[in-house]
C-alpha cells in the first residue's frame, strides 16, 4: 500500500491534533510551545506532501515554504522559551492556569 496523498494528510492531521492536544491539555507553558511546534511541523508535512504529490514546479515551492516556516518556527520557539523563562523568573510558576493576568 504505497501511501497516497490522503494518507499523508491524515497522518499530518493526526500530528496536528496531537499538537493541539498537547497545547490544550498540558498545563505546563513549555508544552504549549511543544504543541505549537508539532502543529507547525504537521503543516510543513502537509506542504511537502502537497508539493510531492502536486504538479512539479521548477522552483520547489512547497519545499521553500517548508524551509521558511521551519526557520520562522525556530525563531518563534526561541522567543517563546525566552518568554517562559522570563515569566517563570517573575511568577515562579509555569502553570498556565495561574498565569491569567491578561484576564478580560
Amino acid at each position: 500500500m504505497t501511501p497516497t496523498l490522503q494518507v499523508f494528510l491524515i497522518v499530518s492531521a493526526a500530528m496536528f491534533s496531537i499538537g493541539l492536544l498537547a497545547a490544550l491539555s498540558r498545563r505546563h507553558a513549555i508544552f504549549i510551545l511543544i504543541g505549537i511546534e508539532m502543529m507547525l511541523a504537521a503543516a510543513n508535512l502537509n506542504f511537502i506532501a502537497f508539493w510531492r504529490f502536486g504538479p512539479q514546479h521548477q522552483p520547489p515551492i512547497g519545499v521553500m515554504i517548508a524551509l521558511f516556516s521551519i526557520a520562522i518556527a525556530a525563531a518563534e520557539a526561541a522567543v517563546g522559551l525566552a518568554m517562559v523563562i522570563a515569566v517563570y523568573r517573575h511568577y515562579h510558576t509555569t502553570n498556565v492556569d495561574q498565569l491569567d493576568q491578561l484576564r478580560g
Partner: protein
Amino acid sequence: MNGAAFVIIAICTLAAALAAATLPNLMHAALSFAVAFVGIAAFFFLLGAEFVGLALVFIYVGAVAVLIVFTILLTRRDAGKDHGFNWGGAIVALAVFGGLTWAILKTQSLAMLAPHMATLTVKRIGTALMTTYVWPLQCVGLLLTAALIGALILVLEEKR
C-alpha cells in the same frame, strides 16, 4: 517509497508525538518531542525532500529540543509537579481530528499516487532560494536576528 517504511515511520512519529503530549514526566515528554521530529524528518525523506528533513532535524533536534530541555532545567522548581491534564482539550483535539479526516476523505481528488519526480538536489533548492526567493530569505534572516536579540533581551534583562 514503500508502504512498509511509511507505516513504520508513521507509527513511530505518532507514538512519539502522543508521548510528548501526554507523558507526565517533563523530560521524557521533551525527549519524545525530539524523537517525534526525527520521525517527521524521516517522513520528509520519504517524500524526497531530504534537505528539508535534514534542516528539520538539524534545527529542531539540535536547537529547539535543547532549548526546551534547558528551559525545563531553568524552571526546575515546579517542573516536578505535574500540572495535571484537562480532558477538555482532549475532546476538542479529537473533534478537530475527526473534522479534518472527514474533510480529507470527502475530497476524492486527493487520493492519488505519487507521480514521478526528479530528485530534489540541494543545488535546485539553493538556486531557487537565491533567485526567486531572495527577498523572503533576507526577511527570514532579519527575523531570526531579531528573534535572537529579543530572546536575549528577555532573558538578559532579568539577570541584571
